[in-house]
């Protein structure tokens, strides 16, 4: 589908239910994937994805085709999801029922539980995971990530390198103890 056709599609979303359905089906897998990767396996990512999809449908008429529909969708999804995560963290911190530092991280997520790759990503510190996911899963550049997450370029680079080091540690441990893949302790998420 060309950018022109994407633009036409987006502009008809408000008035044409079929266009809205096509639009939603097209973007939904990407939105859900991105929300899930940003929030981790913890409950709440589906809410973030739903909010993002609603936001995308609202914003559709403003899509002007200056970039791909997917990249435009990512921008809205990242911002909506991070905003949702922050709000959720604040509410739960006020309620005192959870350590706000861990609201984005699944407690005890193990490598077996989610498959090796997802398991490693979900073990990362949340701010680092956001950068690693945007850089390596969604292949955004450093400047784009800085723009998406509202932090400086240097902060993005620092979080990326720290995140990669975390991943490296997990990979080395995984390779050193392959039998761990088969061990279930019952302590996982």
């Amino acid at each position, binding site marked *: *589908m*060309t950018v022109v*056709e994407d633009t036409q*599609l987006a502009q008809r979303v408000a008035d044409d239910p*079929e*266009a809205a*359905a*096509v639009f939603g*089906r*097209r973007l*939904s*897998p*990407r939105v*859900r*994937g*991105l929300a*899930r*990767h940003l929030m981790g*396996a913890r409950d709440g990512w589906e809410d973030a*994805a739903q909010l993002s999809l609603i936001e995308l449908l609202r914003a559709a008429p403003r899509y002007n085709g200056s970039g*791909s*529909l*997917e990249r435009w969708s990512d921008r809205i999804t990242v911002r909506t999801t991070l905003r949702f995560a922050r709000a959720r963290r604040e509410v739960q911190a006020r309620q005192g029922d959870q350590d706000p530092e861990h609201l984005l991280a699944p407690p005890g997520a*193990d490598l*077996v*539980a*989610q*498959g*090796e*790759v*997802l398991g490693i*990503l979900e073990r990362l510190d949340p701010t680092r995971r956001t950068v690693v996911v945007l*850089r*390596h*899963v*969604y*292949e955004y*550049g*450093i400047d784009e990530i800085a723009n998406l997450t509202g932090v400086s370029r240097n902060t993005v*680079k620092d979080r*990326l*390198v720290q995140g*990669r*080091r975390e*991943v*490296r540690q997990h*990979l*080395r441990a995984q*390779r050193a103890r392959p039998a761990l893949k088969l061990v*279930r302790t019952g302590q*996982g*998420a």
Partner: protein
Amino acid sequence: MNADRDRWADLSDRQAAEEELTPEELDFLSTYPETCDECAYERNWWAELPELQPEVFDGNTRPEPSARGRWRVPARASIIAVATAAAALAALWVSTRPTMSPATSLEARLTPVVTTLPTSTRRPGRWRAVAATGDDVAAVNAMADTGDVVTSRTGHACFRHDLGVVLCVGSSTRATLHGENERPWVALSAGRAVAELEARDLSDAFFVQTPTGRATALGTMFGVEVRPDATSVRVSHGRVAWKADEGGATETVEAGQAVDENGPRVLSSEEMAAERWLLRGGLLWRGGPSATFDLERPRGECRAVVDGRQFGTQRVWLRLPPGERVLSWEGCDDPTREIVRLEPDQHVHRGGSSEPPSDTPAEETSSASPAAKLMARARAAHAQQRLARASQLYAELMVRFPSSPEASVAPLALGRLLLQQGQGPEALAAFDAYLARGGGLGMEARLGRIQALAALGRHEERAAAIADFVERYPDSRAAQALKTDPVDAP
């Protein structure tokens, strides 16, 4: 050793952070993993991550239809789409029997500037050259009569019969074209040929015979390879009935299967990719007025790309419908792009000593490896739902850079794409290929495999695959969903 390993890790981090590296550092970064398994493992791990983009498993193992709905753009001649639409309408015979009509010996040979035969002289029921590559092969740009012989050396050549058969022969191949005003067939003496059949009357049978037997194909895309010691038949779409000359029983080779001297086996995604790659130039023209392109790379390792189809770094000759064509040169230091308007019967030459106009795509200027660039383009096409284009790029990646980390994950990406297009057998073969090679996304590949089996209605195998999945990833969300999945449902 650890110092080198740490240096590699540091450079890898710096590259990810978009810091500038010296040529020596880049060289170390790309070559050191050959001696460091740990580094190669990590490099591959990172290379696979983009495959996680769209995946959130919601418990549905049955493939969804394309999300493009009525907004779908009518696809340009797409290898996959055309092949699917034309399924089971014809059969092909490639024969090696020496009792053919006397050959008029029309040998494929290098013709630096290929002349164009006026389309008004075209008669039905004959072969015409439609594409060729290679430094020592241009094209046979004329009518081919019964018994004409085509010999390719380093490149490939494609021919189209008016009754709707496209045949491409690979390098080191010798074939005899038959079918003047009759059903088309081809005698393959040596080498490799791939055929795609358009919609044809089933009664107008087309079949395949090799030195060791006959393959009567009811499929639209299949390949035959004749080697000194054996013959193999590979079926990408449709079915082929294979019967050995020695009088053995007829075996049916289904889509996604191959049969050779060792009997039937699963067709690997690499083999399917190679078949598509060979056919890529043969499907651009489907009869009617035509014009021709003769493309020589201007310099370095540039490869020609016409309307998004890549043709490698060899010289390329193509027959195309008249109209606007996008010609670009990619993979070199100064990629370019131009729009060429082709008039009927016009011959256009580009490249060689001539300088194509400059129009550098931004994405070609990065320092990423050629395989990474190709993968990026494939993923971009996939994300934009340009599925035929993405499929072509994944296939090209696997063929051109088979040992790259990107190629190792390409079968998984290709499997998902094929599944999206409803091509269950091919998708299944792709997922199996990924799992056989191994990689970090085994869970995702196994989910894809379950979906492919569901699409094919192979419920018992799907149930077994689900059981295996649940055992391997017992606490995953996918396993939880699969446990409640009605495995026997159609």
